[in-house]
């Protein structure tokens, strides 16, 4: 089976064959021998790769797989040949002219620095979020017009919550 694993540092081609608990995995031409078993919980995996044992937690949401082990987390997007082509073109389609500004951590919205319709330059602070007594300015990295403001002052927001949507200036 051939898969493509996309990570922030790039895409890797993965050839994987299964024989019982043993998987032969070739990543970008380099071969690994893996023994995988369920361990402890529904998402827990004990993985021995080339005689080294790792306790891994694998959580999949849609195409994204979050792999955590030893306190480190990797987000891996797995696609087969077909999905990869489809996914690529779909991504192209959704690449419209808006930019969502998300909360980098959970916190309380202390103030909203922009108004709907306002034109903003890159670097303009849009929202201030307080977490653990520290105030954090959330700025837009793109310039454009504020299309939506999705939060109110005093709201508690989760990480990755979309705060403000910016419509990019026509290039």
């Amino acid at each position, binding site marked *: 089976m051939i898969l493509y694993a996309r990570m922030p*540092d790039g895409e890797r081609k993965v050839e*994987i064959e299964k024989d019982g*608990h043993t998987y032969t995995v070739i990543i970008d031409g380099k071969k*690994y021998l*893996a023994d995988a078993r369920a361990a402890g919980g529904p998402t827990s*995996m004990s993985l021995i790769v080339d005689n080294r044992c790792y306790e891994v937690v694998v959580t999949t949401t849609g195409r994204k797989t979050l792999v*955590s*082990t*030893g306190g480190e987390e990797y987000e891996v997007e797995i696609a087969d040949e077909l999905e990869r082509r489809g996914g690529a073109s779909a991504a192209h389609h959704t690449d419209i002219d808006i930019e969502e500004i998300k909360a980098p951590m959970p916190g309380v919205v202390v103030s909203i620095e922009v108004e709907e319709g306002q034109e903003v330059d890159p670097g303009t602070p849009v929202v201030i979020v307080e977490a653990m007594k520290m105030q954090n300015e959330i700025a837009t990295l793109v310039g454009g017009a504020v299309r939506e403001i999705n939060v109110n002052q005093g709201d508690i927001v989760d990480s990755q919550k979309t705060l403000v949507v910016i419509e990019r200036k026509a290039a």
Partner: protein
Amino acid sequence: MAPRPKLFKKVLVANRGEIAIRVFRALSEMGIASVAVYSEADRLSSHLAYADEAHPIGPPPAAESYLDIDKIIAVARRTRCQAVHPGYGFLAESHEFAAACRDAGLVFIGPTAESIKAMGFKTRAKKIMADSGVPVIPGSDGAVKNAAAALKVAGDIGYPVMLKASAGGGGKGMRIIYEAAEIEQAFRTARSEAESYFGDPEIFIEKFIERPRHIEVQILADDYGNVIYLGERECSVQRRYQKLIEETPSPALDAATRKRICETAVKAAKAARYRNAGTVEFMLDRNGDFYFLEVNTRLQVEHPVTELVTGIDIVKNQIRIASGFELAYGQEDIAPEGSSIECRIYAEDPKNDFLPSLGRIRRVKNPEGPWVRVESYVYGGYDVPVYYDPLIAKVITWGEDRKAAIARMSRALGEYTIEGVETTIPFHMWVMRDRKFVSGDFDTSYIDRHYRGNATEAHHRVPPEIAVIAASISAVERSARAVRPAGAASRWRDTARREGAAR
């Protein structure tokens, strides 16, 4: 003479998180009943289950719960507690709270309200120390009235100097001046900041000591005039005046300086008529001279390193002293052995300028084994609340010597798994392998000068290929499952169990 003292029967802990649990454990071991309080944001905090009783005290903001003196005293009285332990932070250094406890017939487990108040005002504290022969940093004799006076003092002691708020602390409202031309404006700004932060515009001047080490001495003092020291702690690994790593003994002190700084701390405690556990903080300059900084009139976050080298349970001693017992140790009984280090684990992202990283903790696996101590309160599925301090755990190790303690800390950090939020664990792993730290060559500027967020990348415990393999295997198994009837459990899982059983 006073009647023979008796231990309290019931104590309220006016705090949350790991320090509340630390105190509950001590109370449990002493056979003392305990009462926890919690804000609405802390209904699911684990400290509740370590107490015999848990009582709500109001909404999440600390001002309406953990800082609300009336509410806490009301719970203490209603539950018939005899004493209150404040932990650290929140009301621990509030002389108003200490006084309110006394007025309500409760024992405040800490120094008297008067000591707290005297030490809380930096200029007053400095004067008391100077008068008692404790070395203080050259500077103004108390508050400085105006810019002209500031200019004169600065000229006398020599630049650089520092402007500080009398009512301040923790680095807030401080300002470094390198030349006379800056003074006038800096003085005005400093006053207005001090006013807005602390409600008091009073400013004083001190000589600015470049790249000092932060050394503090733990003391214990009882009602009978006995004061002993439990050795020093080295707390120079700081970031924005926030300690991150503490250890004892300090690699910077020779035996003679150690004795001198510890005995000075006892002198300072006596000058302040100090009672209970406390910490005298000093700055150590590059010549080996040290200067009084302040007295922390409470239990410190980093008290465990002292406990591990002395074998003395500081929290139990706080409670015994407050119960009216005389200290069970003389100075000659204190013989620190080996070396101990503490790493503070914050829910902060060291790769991203230590930005808070909150959210739901998915999984926790604490380090264990020989000479590793963990003080923590988080668990898998716990949402770290946004309202309070981001300290989620402390790891403390002991070793025969500093090298062994560091090696053990590296091992312990390698075992530590906290998933769902970013933590300072990778930062600490970097420090434990950093040549400067390992050789003891560092000061309070260490992190700013040497640590780059991406330095932690080099200490990835698990290469990304493992994640690719795990995700790919998971994908293979999902696709295998997809062609089987719905409702069937994970196939590789079932197989694993069947085969295991057949062997």
